[in-house]
């Protein structure tokens, strides 16, 4: 049994990450987080919006993921994300601005649809800010 997992994160826009890691944890849409260690049983799951972390060389690293699918095998985790970013790719100022705008939109929202859209925007910006704010991320 190998001691590492090959983690691959791809989006329609670009391949985001591909490397051997010791541990992965990713968010699901409805069932909290999955923590994956080498030798995990084959699993296929939906992926929710949130933060994914992996451990490489004893260090925790963070990625954002927004929806998609994960396929887990004994020695691999493949994430087909709708969107995903590494911490370096996050523009802190833009995320902050987007958060303010979402808050504004949330206040002005008239219909339920507007409300949901603004909430989704707010959640996305909060996830990005949180990722950037983690140790190992920049800005803090």
């Amino acid at each position, binding site marked *: 049994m190998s001691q590492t997992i090959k983690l691959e994160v*791809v989006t329609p826009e670009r391949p985001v990450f591909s490397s051997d890691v010791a541990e992965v944890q990713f968010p699901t849409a409805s069932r909290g987080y999955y923590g994956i260690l080498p030798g995990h049983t*084959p699993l*296929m799951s939906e992926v929710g919006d949130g933060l994914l972390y992996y451990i490489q060389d004893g260090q925790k690293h963070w990625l954002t993921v927004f929806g998609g*699918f994960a*396929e887990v095998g*004994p020695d691999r985790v493949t994430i*087909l994300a709708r969107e995903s970013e590494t911490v370096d790719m996050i523009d802190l100022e833009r995320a902050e601005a987007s958060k303010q705008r979402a808050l504004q939109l949330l206040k002005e929202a008239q219909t339920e649809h507007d409300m949901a859209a603004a909430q989704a925007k707010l959640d996305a910006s909060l996830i990005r800010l949180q990722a950037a704010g983690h140790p190992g991320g920049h800005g803090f």
Partner: protein
Amino acid sequence: MAGFQDIRRRIRSVKNTQQVTKAMKMISAVKLRKSQERLVSLRPYASKMMEVVQRVVGRIQGDSEIQPGPAAQAFLSPREEKRIRLVVVASDKGLCGGFNANVLKAASAFVAERGAEIVHLDVVGKRAAEWAKKHGLNPAGEYLGIAMPGFQRVVTEICQGANAQYHADEIDALYVIYNYFNSAVAQTPTVFRVFPMELDPRNASREATEVSHLLEPDPNSVLETLLPRFVETELLRNLLESSASEHGARMAAMDKASNNAGEMIAKLTLTMNKLRQASITNQIIEIVSGANA
């Protein structure tokens, strides 16, 4: 000298044409780069998606405990192909070598083989629409003048339509005929069956010893979101392949045209110079013989 003037006029006109073809080549090069970038960044996602779907579907097929829902059926149990939805992807404009001719030839062969009456046709690009008209086919969907930002809309429309039709038993399969992008100068007309999926037998056998996948939250809800997403990704990839191929083909065609124009100019210039020399020689002879007399 009438011949002399004619040649000069021709050289000028060939030069003008050459300028046009050179400009078109450069425009195509820019467009090619854009399409290619988008394609190259989508391909890893598409191939990973394909891999995962193959694996999961292959495993489920061998597992009698899982009862696949309607969405999964399309992939798992191919029906006899009595009605086919076919998407033919060509370009809006010509001047791109064999790009349209090749893909439309493949489409003609496909329609002839399966029978025009069972094919439910969608055409992308004016050339494909013209082709359909010429062959007396009546496309249900026409997508003309679509540029890259519009691809997503086309994809969503066709996928939703095909999905609904499949469940209503109106079609049994979805095919796409497009130009596969090998490189900027090489395209291959390709017939691709999006669903039911052609399972790679290696996937089933290679992992047969492994335990079956756990599917969370439950098998059908995963498959019902994964499979349509897969179809959309493949269709989008096909459109991008075709778009990159088109610009590549046009760039190659225009490069050839510019070279040919260059050759023609060289030839004409040579003829013109010969003519001019001949006329000068003639005049000298006339003067010399006049002086002698």
